[in-house]
C-alpha cells in the first residue's frame, strides 16, 4: 500500500483560534493519495476538506490556524517539517492547485501567457522564449482554440470556462505529481463543467499524475475518481473505492448524501435528507419508512388549473453602446419575446445557463426591472400598467427569494425586524405584539425556533438564512413566489431540506412558484412544468417529465447530456 502512494496523511489535526475558542477544523484524519489515481474528497462546507488540502500545500494561515498533530508524507518525507523556502520549490512544481473561482484566481493586469510563463521560468528555469512556446503548447492541450493568438489575451477577454482551462494549464505547466482541484467546477455551467471534468481526467491519464478532487457534490466525482473520502465535521466518515461507496455506502452520512441529490430518472414527492439517516452527532437513524416511501412515490402532476400568470411577448433590452450624440447603437436582448403561462398552485421551472436571461425575466415579472415591451397579466390584471401605489399593493401577492442567503438579509436588522417589516409596509397585524406573534409562527413554519427572532443574520448558517428568507417572503401571505436560484448556494444536503420545505409550503398554502435554476435535476424535482431558456428566448416548454424524456430542442438535449449521472459509469447499466 505505502509503496505506491504519493501522499500519506497520518493523524492530521488542524485547529483554528477564534476570539472565543479554538475550533478543530480537522480531527485526526488519515488517508493516502495513490500515484496516478484520482481521490475525491467530499463533504459539506465547514467539513474540513479545504483545510486538509491547504495543509498539504503548507498554506494554513498561521495565526489563526495551526497544524496541531500528524504528518503529511510526500514520497516518504514529512511536508510539515519543510522550511518555507523548501515548500516554495514544491508548490507549483510538484504539487499544484486549481481553485473554485476562475474569475478572481487570475491576475487581471497580466496576459494569460505571462501568467503561465511565470512558473515555468521560476521552476523550470526556462528562457522567456522557451516558456512562451511551452505556454502555447499548454493552452493547446487544455483545449483553448487558436492558442498562439489567445495567449496574448487578458483574463477579462475570456469566458469563465476558458479561464478555468487557463488555470489548469498553469497548474500542469511543471508536470506536477499531484494536482489539487478545489471545487473547480462549482462556479461553472453544467455544459462547461462536463468539459472541464473530461479535461482533468484526460490530463490525469496523459501525465500520470495524482489528483485530489475536492467537492461538496458526490455526483460530480462519480465518473472521474478512483477512490472517495467522505468528510463530516472534521472527521473522515468513509473511505473506499468509488464503486463501493456508490454501491453500498457504509456510513449513514454517505447514504444521506447519495439519497438527497435529486435524480433525473425519478420524479419523487419528497427528497430524503441526511437527517433522515443520521442524527447531527453522527448516529445512524433506522429511518422512518414513510419518508423513504414518500421519496420513492412518484409525484402526480395534477389537473391543469386556471392560469395565474400570463406573460405575452415580454422583452427586456439593455442599452449597450451609446453613440456620440447619446443615441443607443446596440442592445443586449436579455429577455427577447418570451411568452409563458404559470398555472395556479403549480411550479414552473426555468432553466438555462448563466447569461441566458432567466434572472432578468424573474425580476421583470416583479417589475424590479421595468420591461421594455410586452404584457404581464397576473390574475387578469396587467401588472405593467399599474401605477406606483397599485404596484406596491400588488407586491403583497408576488414575492421573491434570492440566491445568496448571505446578501439577501440586511446585516444590521434582527430577524424579527426583518420579518415584521413587510407586515408594517402592508399594514398587516394591528400591533407590534400581534406582528411578533405572526413572526414567531412564521419561524415555526420554516422550521426555526421562534426564540431566534432577536438574533442577527450573521449568527445563522446558510441553510437557516435561506429559511429566514422564505419566512420573510411568506410574511405578507403571498400567492406567488419567484425562487431565483434559491438553493444553488447551499450544500446538497441542505438543498434537499429547503426543497422539501418549499414543497410542503406549496401544498399547505396553495402557492404558485416560478423556480429559476441552472441545475436541471433540481428543476425536474420541484417543477410541474419546465421552460428552457437560451439567449433570452424560451426554446422549449413541456411538463417536467416530458422535457427530460423527450427533449425536442438541440440545446435541451445538450444540457441534459451534460449533467453528471451521479453514478460511476460501471454501475450504470
Amino acid at each position, binding site marked *: 500500500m505505502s509503496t505506491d502512494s504519493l501522499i500519506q496523511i497520518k493523524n492530521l489535526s488542524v485547529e483554528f483560534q477564534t476570539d472565543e475558542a479554538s475550533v478543530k477544523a480537522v480531527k485526526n484524519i488519515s488517508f493516502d493519495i495513490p500515484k496516478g489515481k484520482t481521490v475525491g474528497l467530499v463533504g459539506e462546507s465547514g467539513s474540513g476538506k479545504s483545510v486538509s488540502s491547504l495543509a498539504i500545500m503548507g498554506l494554513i494561515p498561521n495565526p489563526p490556524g495551526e497544524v496541531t498533530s500528524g504528518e503529511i508524507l510526500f514520497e516518504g518525507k514529512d511536508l510539515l517539517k519543510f522550511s518555507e523556502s523548501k515548500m516554495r520549490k514544491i508548490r507549483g512544481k510538484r504539487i499544484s492547485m486549481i481553485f473554485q473561482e476562475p474569475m478572481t484566481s487570475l491576475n487581471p493586469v497580466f496576459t494569460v501567457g505571462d501568467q503561465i510563463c511565470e512558473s515555468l521560468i521560476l521552476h523550470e528555469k526556462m528562457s522567456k522564449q522557451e516558456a512562451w512556446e511551452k505556454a502555447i503548447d499548454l493552452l493547446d492541450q487544455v483545449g483553448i482554440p487558436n492558442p498562439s493568438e489567445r495567449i496574448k489575451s487578458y483574463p477579462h477577454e475570456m469566458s469563465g470556462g476558458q479561464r478555468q482551462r487557463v488555470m489548469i494549464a498553469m497548474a500542469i505547466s511543471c508536470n506536477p505529481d499531484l494536482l489539487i482541484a478545489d471545487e473547480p467546477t462549482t462556479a461553472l455551467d453544467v455544459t462547461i463543467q462536463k468539459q472541464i471534468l473530461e479535461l482533468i481526467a484526460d490530463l490525469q491519464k496523459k501525465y500520470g499524475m495524482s489528483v485530489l478532487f475536492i467537492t461538496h457534490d458526490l455526483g460530480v466525482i462519480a465518473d472521474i475518481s478512483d477512490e472517495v473520502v467522505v468528510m463530516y465535521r472534521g472527521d473522515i466518515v468513509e473511505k473506499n473505492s468509488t464503486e463501493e461507496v456508490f454501491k453500498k455506502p457504509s456510513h449513514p452520512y454517505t447514504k444521506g448524501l447519495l439519497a438527497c441529490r435529486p435524480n433525473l430518472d425519478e420524479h419523487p414527492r419528497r427528497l430524503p435528507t441526511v437527517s433522515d439517516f443520521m442524527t447531527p452527532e453522527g448516529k445512524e437513524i433506522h429511518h422512518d419508512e414513510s419518508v423513504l416511501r414518500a421519496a420513492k412515490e412518484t409525484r402526480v402532476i395534477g389537473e391543469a388549473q386556471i392560469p395565474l400568470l400570463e406573460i405575452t411577448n415580454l422583452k427586456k433590452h439593455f442599452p449597450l453602446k451609446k453613440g456620440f450624440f447619446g443615441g443607443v447603437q446596440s442592445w443586449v436582448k436579455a429577455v427577447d419575446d418570451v411568452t409563458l403561462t404559470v398555472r395556479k398552485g403549480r411550479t414552473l421551472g426555468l432553466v438555462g445557463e448563466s447569461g441566458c436571461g432567466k434572472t432578468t425575466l424573474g425580476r421583470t415579472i416583479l417589475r424590479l426591472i421595468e420591461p421594455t415591451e410586452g404584457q404581464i397579466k397576473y390574475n387578469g390584471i396587467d401588472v405593467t400598467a399599474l401605477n406606483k401605489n397599485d404596484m406596491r399593493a400588488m407586491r403583497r401577492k408576488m414575492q421573491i427569494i434570492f440566491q445568496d442567503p448571505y446578501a439577501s438579509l440586511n446585516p444590521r436588522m434582527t430577524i424579527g425586524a426583518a420579518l415584521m417589516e413587510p407586515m408594517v*409596509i402592508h399594514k398587516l397585524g394591528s400591533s407590534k405584539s400581534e406582528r411578533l406573534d405572526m413572526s414567531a409562527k412564521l419561524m415555526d413554519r420554516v422550521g426555526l*425556533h421562534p426564540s431566534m427572532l432577536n438574533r442577527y443574520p450573521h449568527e445563522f448558517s446558510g441553510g437557516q438564512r435561506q429559511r429566514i428568507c422564505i419566512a420573510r417572503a411568506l410574511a*405578507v401571505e403571498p400567492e406567488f413566489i419567484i425562487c431565483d436560484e434559491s438553493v444553488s448556494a447551499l450544500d446538497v444536503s441542505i438543498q434537499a431540506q429547503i426543497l422539501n420545505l418549499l414543497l410542503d409550503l406549496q401544498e399547505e398554502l396553495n402557492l404558485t412558484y416560478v423556480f429559476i435554476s441552472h441545475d436541471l435535476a433540481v428543476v425536474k424535482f420541484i417543477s410541474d412544468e419546465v421552460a428552457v431558456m437560451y439567449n433570452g428566448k424560451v426554446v422549449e416548454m413541456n411538463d417536467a417529465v416530458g422535457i427530460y424524456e423527450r427533449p425536442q430542442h438541440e440545446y435541451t438535449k445538450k444540457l441534459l447530456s451534460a449533467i453528471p449521472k451521479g453514478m460511476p459509469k460501471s454501475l450504470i447499466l
Partner: protein
Amino acid sequence: MTTSDDRGRSLWADAIRKIKHNRVALVSFWVIIGYLVLAALCASGLAFTGYGITNNDISYQAPSWAHWFGTDLFGRDVLARAAQGTVTSLIVGFFGAGLSVVIGTLLGALAGYFGGLIDELITWFYSTLDNIPYILLLVAFSFVSGPGLKTLCLAIGLTSWVGHCRLVRSEFIKQRGQEYVQGAFAMGASHARRIFIHILPNTLHLVLISFSLGFVSAIKSEVILSYLGLGVEPGTPSWGMMISDAKLELSRGVWWGLAAATLFMFFLVLAFTLFNDGIRDATDPKLRDK
C-alpha cells in the same frame, strides 16, 4: 435550546466588544474623553479661568512652577490659553465636521441611490467645487462673512463635504444592487425606507470613520485659518492664534507658546487617528471573524 429572551449580537455590539479588546483604541478613547472633560471644565468656568488676565510685568516669562508653559506678550498664562483653546478646537471639529458629514452623506446617498440625472448633477456640483483649491474656498468664505467661531464652522462644513459625499455615493451604489435591498423593493418598501432603514445603517460605520477623519482635518483647518488671520476673533483662545503669534516670538527665543499649542493639538489628533483605526478594524466586515 435557547430561552425566549435569547438576545442577538448586533454588528455594533460586536464592534464595541472588539474595540474593548484593542488597547490602543481604548487608550485613545479615554484621551479623547479627557479632552472633552477638559473642554467642558474650561467652558463652564471651572478650570483655567485665568486665561484672560493680563499682566505686562510678566510678559514673555519662560516656563516656571507658577506658569508651566510660561507667559505670552501680555503676561497671560500660556497653559491656561492652550487648555481653553481645546474648547475652540472641539467646537470647530464637532460642528465643522458634523455639518460636512451631514451634507456629504445626504448628497452622496441621493446620488448613489438614484443614479441617473440626480447623480450627474450632484457629481458635477462636487467636481466643480473640488476643482477650486480648498484653502482658497475657506479663505474666500471667511472673508465674505468675517471672522468668528460660527463662520469658521460654516466655512469648514460647507467646503469639506466632497470626500464624504464620494465615499457615501460609492457605498450606496454598491449596496443598492445587493439582494437585501432588492428584497425590500420586492416587498413594497418605499425609496425613503430603502435609503434610510436599509442602506444607510449599512454605511454608517464608514460615515463614522469619515466623520472622525473630518474632525481632525477641521481642527487643522482652524489652525491654518487662524494663522492666516481668518479664524476666530482676536482674544478668543485658540491653538491657531497661538501658533500664529509664534511666528514673531520664535525669533526672540520664545518657544513655549508654540510648544503648548502644538502638544495639545498633537495628542488630540493622535488620539483621534488611532481611535479611528480601531473603529475601522472593528467595523470592517472583511476583518470580522466568524
